[in-house]
Structures are given as structure tokens and as C-alpha cells.
């Protein structure tokens, strides 16, 4: 049992890094970015390839972040400079990345069994036992949260938030929203690739299909977190989406315990998102019939 709980927490926090990236585009920039499916795998692919060719795993992880950021820049340029819709820009990059990821890896999957990773390095530190993976992951999540929180409160960060809120206004205040979107997408996909790198090193392999459906996992986590914790301020929402990522993993673990085959996970994920998306109506109807006592107001 303890094994399952720790495993769930590890996975939850690892994916939380990806969810923070999704939060930055989906909520802050109001941009549904499907690049995520490709950039998650890209992070894993870069890390696995570099590690197997003998590069230091910490540098490999850094390179994964750089790769993800570049993917974000590409999507951003497609949208901002060439006026392709957000959805299509993301899909185009995601599709292109599928081939790129195969090229990076040279084959459909790479094993990292017995390879040196950031986790094996960290576990070798003094006083580390079975919790080392969790501790390193939590440190990474906290660093990402603090970075994002501080970033969104800088002058530039306010411009990013205003771009997602009221583009007309922020342009008239002298902000080049094209550039803001490109930088926002770059940061977001950098974080997503960072998560991909973590996941690959933890599960000790990278697979070309590991990013499929990742955007839906991200959306599910953001929506669950906001519904449970709220989104009244930036700090609160950041904590909420991390919490949402962990809860999402817990739900998945529960479903697996109930005996559903892992191949059904994507179906379950889609259902979670559908339920979460239609739940405001659900709450209203239940509220009217007196079953739901208090409905949490959410701003439009």
C-alpha cells in the first residue's frame, strides 16, 4: 500500500511540472496549446539519447528543457507571425515533433536500465533511502512553482497575464503580444519537456508514444485543481494545479486498483475531463434540486 501511495505521489508531482506548463498557456495566456503532446516526448527523447551516449544526466535534463522551449517558439511563430489558429499551430508542431522525436532517438524507444540518471545521482547522496525520487521531484516542483509565481508578478509577467485576459488593452499599453505569446509558449513547453525528462529517467525508458494524450492529462489536472482549491489568485491557482495533478494520479491509481487494464487509461482521462467540463451545469442542476449545497463560483 505504501508503495502505491509513494508511487502515486512521485508520478503526481512529476506530471505536476507538465501541468504547470499547461496552466501557463491554457489559463494564463488563454491558448489551448497541443504542442504539449510532442514536447513532452521530445524532453524524454533528448534526455534518453544524450544519457545513452554518455552525457551527464543533469546536462541532458537541461538540454531537454531547451528542446521543449524551441518547440514552443516554433508553435508561437506559426501563430503570432503567420496567423495560424492556436489549435492548428499546436497540432502542426505536435505532428512534426513525432518525426523529430523518432529522429532524435533513432528508434521507437530507448531503455535507460542501469544508466546513470539524475535519480541515481540523487539517491547516492547521503541520508537518501527509498524516498529519494519523491524528494527530488518535490524539489523540482517547488522550484517551478516559485519561478512561475515570481515570473507572473514581474512587469513582463503582468503583460503575459493581460495578453490572455484582454489583448486589445495590453496592445494599447504598448506590449508586443506576438512576442509575449512566443515567450509564454516557450516557457510552457520548456516545463513540459522538463517533466518528460523526469518521467523518462524515473521509468527508465523513453518511448515515442509516451506523450500521446498528455494535453488532456494537463487539462484534467488544471480543471480538477481549480475546482477543488479555487483560482482566486495566481498563487492559489498554482498550488491548485499541482494539487490537481496529484489528485488526477490518485484517481488513475484507484482505477488501476479496481482492475481496469492500463490501456483504458486514456478513456478514463477523457471521461474525467468531460465530467469536469460539464460539471458547472451539473452543479447548477443539482443545486436547484437541493442536492448540491454550495456551488463554487468561477469567473468567466
Amino acid at each position, binding site marked *: 500500500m505504501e508503495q502505491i501511495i509513494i508511487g502515486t505521489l512521485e508520478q503526481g508531482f512529476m506530471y505536476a511540472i507538465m501541468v504547470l506548463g499547461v496552466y501557463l498557456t491554457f489559463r494564463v495566456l488563454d491558448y489551448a496549446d497541443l504542442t504539449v503532446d510532442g514536447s513532452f516526448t521530445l524532453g524524454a527523447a533528448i534526455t534518453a539519447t544524450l544519457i545513452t551516449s554518455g552525457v551527464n544526466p543533469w546536462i541532458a535534463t537541461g538540454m531537454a528543457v531547451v528542446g521543449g522551449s524551441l518547440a514552443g517558439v516554433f508553435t508561437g511563430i506559426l501563430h503570432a507571425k503567420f496567423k495560424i489558429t492556436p489549435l492548428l499551430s499546436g497540432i502542426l508542431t505536435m505532428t512534426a515533433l513525432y518525426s523529430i522525436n523518432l529522429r532524435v532517438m533513432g528508434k521507437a524507444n530507448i531503455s535507460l536500465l542501469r544508466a546513470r540518471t539524475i535519480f541515481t545521482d540523487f539517491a547516492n547522496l547521503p541520508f537518501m533511502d527509498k524516498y529519494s525520487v519523491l524528494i527530488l521531484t518535490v524539489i523540482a516542483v517547488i522550484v517551478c512553482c516559485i519561478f512561475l509565481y515570481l515570473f507572473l*508578478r514581474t*512587469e*513582463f509577467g503582468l*503583460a503575459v497575464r493581460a495578453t490572455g485576459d*484582454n489583448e486589445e*488593452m495590453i496592445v*494599447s*499599453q504598448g*506590449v508586443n503580444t506576438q512576442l509575449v505569446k512566443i515567450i509564454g509558449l516557450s516557457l510552457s513547453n520548456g516545463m513540459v519537456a522538463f517533466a518528460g525528462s523526469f518521467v523518462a529517467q524515473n521509468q527508465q525508458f523513453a518511448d515515442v508514444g509516451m506523450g500521446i494524450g498528455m494535453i488532456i492529462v494537463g487539462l484534467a489536472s488544471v480543471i480538477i485543481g481549480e475546482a477543488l482549491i479555487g483560482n482566486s489568485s495566481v498563487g492559489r491557482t498554482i498550488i491548485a494545479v499541482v494539487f490537481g495533478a496529484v489528485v488526477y494520479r490518485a484517481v488513475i491509481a484507484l482505477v488501476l486498483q479496481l482492475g481496469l487494464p492500463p490501456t483504458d487509461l486514456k478513456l478514463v482521462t477523457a471521461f474525467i475531463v468531460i465530467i469536469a467540463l460539464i460539471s458547472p451545469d451539473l452543479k447548477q442542476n443539482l443545486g436547484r434540486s437541493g442536492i448540491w449545497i454550495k456551488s463554487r463560483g468561477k469567473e468567466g
Partner: protein
Amino acid sequence: MLKGHAITKVFNRGTINQKLALDGVDIHLKQGEFVTVIGSNGAGKTTLLNSLAGNFFLDNGKLILAGNDITKLPRHKRANLISRVFQDPMLGTAAAMTIEENMVIALRRGLTRRLRKAITTKDRNLFREELCKLGLGLENRLTNKVSLLSGGQRQALTLLMATLREPKLLLLDEHTAALDPKTAEKVLDLTVRVQDEYKLTTFMVTHNLTHALEYGNRTIMMHEGRIILDIKEEERRDMTVARLLKMFEKASGTLMNNDRMMLV
């Protein structure tokens, strides 16, 4: 301050809907001049304002503002010189952000957005002081989201934000049209106050002829993409709405046709 020469804009060029929206408009505004702009539907008032703001580039003509050629500058690069208040109270502020966050964005209008903490205690004190002048009690609500404010409050805030960093040109696009009459009066009073305080060069489009004569120190009237009347000084002092309408008919050869025009 502002020199616009032969401003020309054609919409939907080469299609059946081709429309000459601005037909070689010449406009000169002196420093501190407060011009009100009126005209019938489709006369080109808002198009002229948008051309100054940089919503689109001109097909012909030249724009010089405070010695800078802004003809080819995109909208966000003109923001350093130009402030704008929109007709729609929702457009001027970011609803999901707080009052102080909106104000600090406006405080750095047209300047580089740096990677440093946006709001300092000094900023907060400045915002409180400025909000006090509005007399709406907003000075105690700095961390409230703007979405909690009424349309009138949001428009007053937008106007305040427009002058936090003094602009070379203030553009007002029927900025009281979406407000109830009482709130509209208040926002107009505030407009006059800030315009007078900084002696701002101001370009105000309005559909209210009384306001057009009552506020500002110059009135221009547009028709079919051209300026057909330009009234200032003594001529304007003695002007009445009725005489203005007569002059319009004489100059344009048609009746004033504006379904939103208010005569009183």
C-alpha cells in the same frame, strides 16, 4: 503637436464593398488643443481615430506626432506617445487582474516590461493618491479584481490609467456612449479635469452635439471621409446645436444622418 497630412484609407479594396473611408484628411492639432469630432454614420470619425492609434496602416498620407513620424509604426510602438479610452468599458482594463495590477501596467505604457517585481510600495501610494481624485472609493480596493467594478468605474479607471504616464495625444472614442447619463456626466467631468491638468492634446469622438460644443476648444465635423467643418475660437463660442446642424447641411448637401446622434 499632431500633423496628419492627406490621410487616406480604403477598406476592401478591389471588392464590391470597396469603401473610401478616409479621403485625404488633413488635420493639425496644436499642443493642448481639445478637439471634439462629430459626423453622421460612416463619416469616418472612428476610422480617423483608429488611424491615429495605429489599428491599421494608411494607404496614403503621413502622421507626425510630437516630431516623430508614426505613419509606419505598429500600434504597440505608438503607445509610448498615445493613450486611448475605448467606447466599450470592458476594453480598457484587464478584468481578471486587480486594480493595482492594471494601474502598474498603465504606469509603464510604452516602456520595456522588465523582469522585476511589478508593484512597489511607492507605486501603491501613488495609485491610492490618484484613485482618491476619482472620489469613487477605489483607493481602498487596490487588490480587488477589475471585474468587480461597474462600467462607469471601469471607464473612470481607464481614463486615469491613460494619464498615469502623460501621453502626447489622448484618444477618446465615444468613451461615455455605453454609460448611463449620470455616469457619463461624471466621466466627462473627469475627462475635462485630467485634460486641463496636463494640458493634453485630445481627440474626442462623440455622438452628442451638445457635448461636442460644450467640451473642448475646437470641433470638427466629418462627412464621407472628409473634414467638412472646422470650428474654433469665436465662431465656436457663439455656436448652437441648431446652427451647427444648418452648417452641416449646407456643407455636406445632406441631412445629418446618425441614428445615435443626440441633439440635446
